[in-house]
């Protein structure tokens, strides 16, 4: 069992958890993820690691409640446990001295870029961050990123914080200003795609962390298949980061939606049951 030590709601429907996972914490590197399962009937879902403490044996995760399983996790409290936490999975972020790096996060991706930023800083890079959200209260980890990176750019669609616009507007402003040598984007597919479209003509190496569907996370099932540069890759063992310029995004999105109808029904069922048990209590 993997206990939740702290739980904090950091944005609406979004929790930041610190959990017990000593085996994972010992080896984890930035860019890696875990697969978790809440209970015996639960689904195995992948979550990025946004912080870790090797000595304390803890990991930090950010979970956005989107479907049934992430709602189940959202509803867990400090003191509750995950039945399974498996990892660290995936290939760590490639880090070397690049020069100027820009890390871009949307949603839970704003958490995932934090350990990457720290690592790139250790290697003497100049590291800029960009985080975007629809509105101010949805911003995640802005304060931590601000503290850890050379500079943080914030964008909101409604202009309630930082500059009004999208992360790509901030990226464009940076690119207009100075040379950039490396870009990493973690977040919703349209965001990663837009970033890649912008850097491709400039030839700036750009990595995107793909959030494919997964089951085992160890290369056994192939659920996480993506087409990159015309080749089939398994994002759990070959990724999750791939060159953003080579990913077949349309296929990725179609595969992510494979179970959309069923997942919607499952979420409704879960929420209904939750309401009933609350009424009875």
């Amino acid at each position: 069992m993997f206990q939740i030590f702290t739980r904090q709601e950091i944005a609406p429907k979004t929790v930041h958890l610190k959990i017990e996972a000593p085996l994972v914490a010992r080896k984890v590197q930035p860019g890696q993820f875990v697969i978790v399962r809440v209970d015996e009937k639960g689904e195995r879902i992948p979550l990025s690691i946004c912080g870790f403490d090797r000595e304390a044996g803890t990991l930090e995760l950010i979970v956005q409640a989107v479907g049934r399983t992430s709602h189940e996790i959202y509803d867990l409290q400090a003191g509750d446990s995950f039945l399974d936490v498996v990892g660290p999975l995936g290939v760590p972020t490639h880090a070397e001295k690049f020069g100027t790096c820009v890390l871009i996060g949307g949603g839970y991706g704003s958490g995932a870029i934090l350990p990457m930023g720290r690592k790139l800083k250790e290697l003497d890079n100049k590291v800029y961050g960009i985080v975007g959200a629809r509105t101010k209260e949805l911003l995640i980890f802005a304060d931590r990123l601000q503290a850890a990176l050379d500079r943080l750019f914030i964008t909101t669609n409604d202009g309630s914080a930082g500059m009004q616009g999208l992360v790509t507007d901030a990226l464009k402003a940076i690119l207009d200003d100075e040379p950039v040598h490396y870009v990493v984007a973690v977040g919703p597919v349209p965001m990663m795609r837009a970033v890649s479209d912008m850097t491709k003509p400039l030839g700036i190496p750009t990595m995107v962390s793909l959030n494919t569907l997964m089951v085992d996370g160890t290369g056994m099932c192939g659920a996480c298949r993506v087409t990159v540069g015309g080749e089939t890759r398994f994002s759990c063992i070959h990724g999750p980061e791939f060159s953003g310029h080579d990913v077949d995004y349309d296929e990725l999105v179609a595969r992510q939606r494979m179970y959309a109808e069923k997942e919607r029904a499952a979420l409704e069922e879960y929420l209904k049951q939750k309401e009933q048990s609350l009424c009875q209590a």
Partner: protein
Amino acid sequence: MSGLSIKDRIKIPRHKAPEQPPEVRSRNFEEVCLGFGLEEAKEEALRCIECPKPSCVAGCPVGIDIPRFVKLVGEGAILEAAHVLKEKNILPAICGRVCPQEKQCEQSCVIGKRGEPVSIGKIERFVADFERLSGRVELPKPGASTGCSVAIVGSGPAGITGAFELARLGHRVTLFEAMHKPGGVLYYGIPRFRLPSDVIESELKALEYLGVEIFKDAVIGKALSIEDIFKMGYDSILLGTGAGLPKMLGIPGENLVGVYSANEWLTRLNLMRADLFPDYATPIEYGKNIVVIGAGDAAMDGARTSIRLQPEAVTLVYRRSRAEAPCRVEELHHAEEEGVKTRFLTNPVRFIGDSHYKLKAIEVMEMALGEPDSSGRRRPIPIEGSNWTIECDTAIIALGCDINPLVTRSTPGLELTKSGIVVVNTETGMSSIPGLFAAGDVITGGSTVISAMGQAKVAAKGIHDYLVAKKGLRLQYAAV
């Protein structure tokens, strides 16, 4: 009873175990074969002529004393027969169900030369079930402690067998398993209607009695490397990680929505219980027409689980002919009885999707058989211009597996073949790294449950001998 002459025995016709009728079983996940009752098992046992030099034993990869256990069944001494089985095979209820007997022990049975062989597998299953359900299972005990510890990576048939053998000898055994349940392919691959979960669980209980410590959710090569495990103080390691990396076709459209690997399809249904969605949270998606590509065990399991989901049609597509199909004869027969259609000498060339990336058809080509290839089977050759399409919304690719690279590629100095298979000394099971042994699909690229178990026994003996030499133990290996 044993007053029967050989002539009389040979005259007894082979008993067939009762099965759920195809039209009933194709709508449920209950076990297909119902197994022998006591009388049938005893009568079938009488067909064995107790050969003084039994050829059947050589056909069994773990060398079960077949005439001895079968004779005991004929005499009605079932629990004694179970003990004989367990001298060599700790998973008899599993092997009695999934062994390809027709290619192993039964193929070598002398009675089979003229008529039909003794139904060894079904008798084995009966004996194991009888013992299991009798409540009088003889529990294994760990040997007196040797002070040595062995780590086992992977809990499929190879890892389980290795753990069992070594714990019985008194070594402290720790099993590391990547998934959340032990069992390997037994659990996530082979469907419940061939191998019910309670059968696996009860045979795996032996590990508990032997004090084997099981760490689930531990991905070796990621959470811990082989080097880390040695550093933790383990004296030796047995690698039994199987061959779990599904081969894909490498043709256009293989990542369309609706195209599964057999591993994913079966894992969702078996391990994750997608058949019980939404009670269980993992979904599975399929349409009216399911096409399964391949003709091995996984293809049969893919097709037969598909039929049970009751789509309009399930079609098996295979590029060679029926004669070359690598699956068990019984499974192909079962699949066809249940309504699976077959298209032999047919090879997919591309998957065709709609504008939403959803699979809608597969373009295939007809094949002809040429000269035998390196596998000894006749090579399929495409017939130019024979292309046609099969309408379908779901496809399951079942072409077998490559070796998963997580451990093998993260272990410097480990010798691999070109295709990534771990090279071992066939007499000891030791790899190119001293103290690291391997068994099962990771050294063959894919074979059978019982062969993996046989290799694990070789490796267990290899490990024991290695520890004897290294630590000056005085304990002799007593083969089980």
